């Protein structure tokens, strides 16, 4: 099958880049290649990973979501507000965080499908609205005093960090869903050719609404995980998180024009960005150079990958 070949080639190219970067880091530092550091990388990529999986769905429908970072902050603040010790069961703040994210995603979806406003504009609006709401609900201050039950979400289960388990679970479910469910295939159809999909009887609006809603829900999850990790709901958290997430998805071979892309690709993209961030810190590279190196590797990876896919 043609698409399978392309995916294989694609994954191979990206794996090669990750392998080269990993090899370089193993040679340049004596700390990169260790179980402890891999756990470390896994923990650090889990938030960006959850966001990237969510936004993969939106990008597959040829949409975009720029509100991720702000919605992370809003969900984190909402979660922390209900997480004071002894007030509610631990499920309440989690549910509130997830619901907040999902609600933002659904509003995005409704405006895109019913309102006919371009996704770029809708989610740009949501980006500032959610940030504003986060500042309003928190009074502009970090929401502290979270219960131990909730912050335990950033701890370990059987020696594996819970954020990593969340990320792995989300990724596995998304992978399975996109491959085996009719709605999953519809998402590709809508992004590939919206008119053809509509003519073939695909409920285009519902499919898009689902994609934005799911992306919002996962953003809410990322907000809850972040709040647990830093033990506060920070209204100014998550600045520019959408850029890292979208970069990871695009590195992973998902087309910004929609219809093409895989969860495995997204995972590799997330891994590459995470390994770069971790490795440059281990090497003690100044943050000024880090920004430049990161940009070069991102563009280089996509360039190498597209070249391979063409040949």
């Amino acid at each position, binding site marked *: 099958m043609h698409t399978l070949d392309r995916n294989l080639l694609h994954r191979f190219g990206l794996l090669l880049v990750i392998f080269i970067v990993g090899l370089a880091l193993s040679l340049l*530092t004596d*700390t*990169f290649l*260790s179980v*402890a*550091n891999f756990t*470390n990388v896994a*923990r*650090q990529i889990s938030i960006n990973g959850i966001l990237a999986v969510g936004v993969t769905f939106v990008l597959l429908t040829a949409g975009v979501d720029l509100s991720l970072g702000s919605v992370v902050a809003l969900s984190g603040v909402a979660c922390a507000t209900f997480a004071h010790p002894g007030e509610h069961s631990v499920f309440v703040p989690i549910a509130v965080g997830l619901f907040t994210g999902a609600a933002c995603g659904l509003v995005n979806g409704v405006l895109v499908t*019913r*309102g*006919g*406003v371009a996704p770029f504009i809708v989610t740009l609006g949501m980006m500032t609205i959610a940030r504003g709401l986060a*500042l309003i609900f*928190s009074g*502009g*201050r*970090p929401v*502290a005093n979270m219960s131990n039950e909730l912050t335990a979400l*950033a*701890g370990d289960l059987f020696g594996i960090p819970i954020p990593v388990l969340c990320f792995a679970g989300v990724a596995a479910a998304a992978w399975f869903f996109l491959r085996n469910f009719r709605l999953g295939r519809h998402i590709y159809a809508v992004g590939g050719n919206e008119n053809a999909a509509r003519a073939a009887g695909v409920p285009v609006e519902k499919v898009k609404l689902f994609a934005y809603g799911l992306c919002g829900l996962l953003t809410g999850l990322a907000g809850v995980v*972040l709040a647990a*990790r*830093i*033990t*506060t709901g*920070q*209204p*100014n*958290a998550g600045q520019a998180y959408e850029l890292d997430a979208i970069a990871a998805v695009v590195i992973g071979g998902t087309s910004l024009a929609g219809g093409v892309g895989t969860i495995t690709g997204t995972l590799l993209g997330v891994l590459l960005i995470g390994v770069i*961030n*971790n490795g440059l*810190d*281990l*090497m*003690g590279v*100044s*943050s*000024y150079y880090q920004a430049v190196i990161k940009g070069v590797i991102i563009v280089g990876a996509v360039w190498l990958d597209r070249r391979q896919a063409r040949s």
Partner: protein
Amino acid sequence: MRLTPRKAVTALLAFCSLALSVALVSGCKKAAPRKEGEILIGFSSRDLSAEYTAKLSEAVVDYAKTKSGVKLVMVDAQSDVQKQFGQVENFIAQKVDAIILNPCELEASTPAVDRIKTAGIPLVLVNQVTKSAGDSYIGSNDFDAGRIAMEAVAQKLNGQGGVLMLHGIMGTSAQLQREAGAREIFAKYPGLKLVDHQTASWDRAKAMALTENWIQAHQGKFSAIFAHNDEMAMGALLALERAGLKKDVYVIGIDAIAQALTAVKEGRLDATVFQDAVGQGKGSVDAAILLAKKQPCPKETMIPFQLITRENLSQFLK
């Protein structure tokens, strides 16, 4: 109901005009006519979502309320230099009697300061200097804060050992001076080694990730972490605790935010350096009033820093 694009646009416009009229009505309520002889002070805060700045801003607003014949309007620049410039221009257009500016940045906020001086409005700078001076500066010498914190580290380690330093946003006066103060102590104790230093942009999540990476890279080679603010110290603390290494590492921050004080009380954070937010806030209001009345006012008022450890904590907890 199926929403056509035209309907959607109409609805959007209707919504916007509604929002605008609500904003106008509430705006009018705020902009009540100025009473004769009343002093109007404009105050632009750097970022209300940062705990220290929020505390300072609250002190400014509360203290101004206790002064009769004084009206203070506060706006939040959200760490955005451009936004703050716009707010300053609005204050000038409103012909306020004095401006209290808590600048976003050392260099980038200088044009806003120059604009105020050109307009001839008395200016009080608080907690952050710019390249151009205002009529009065209320602050604390961040150089001292860096020195106090690193001196505490040096005492704890008996002048011997590896130290990691978490910088604030590079180029802010607090970051530059806190680093310079710390470097002076490094020069004094040749046994102290700066193992690694990097910016975490005053941010807890970034400081936590950076510390996790440092634990991988330098484990066993450092016995203290100095963070330029408490948010980052809390991030470093969380990373160390999670790795089970806190007992081997002395962690100190600056600012004495509420969470840091609680952490010191619980014996988790070793120390913080107290910057007197309330003192700075009150001082800036007093200076603004003096300047608005064209009375003499000191060019510079320095509110001192103090080291807070578990031993003297009680006097700082309200």
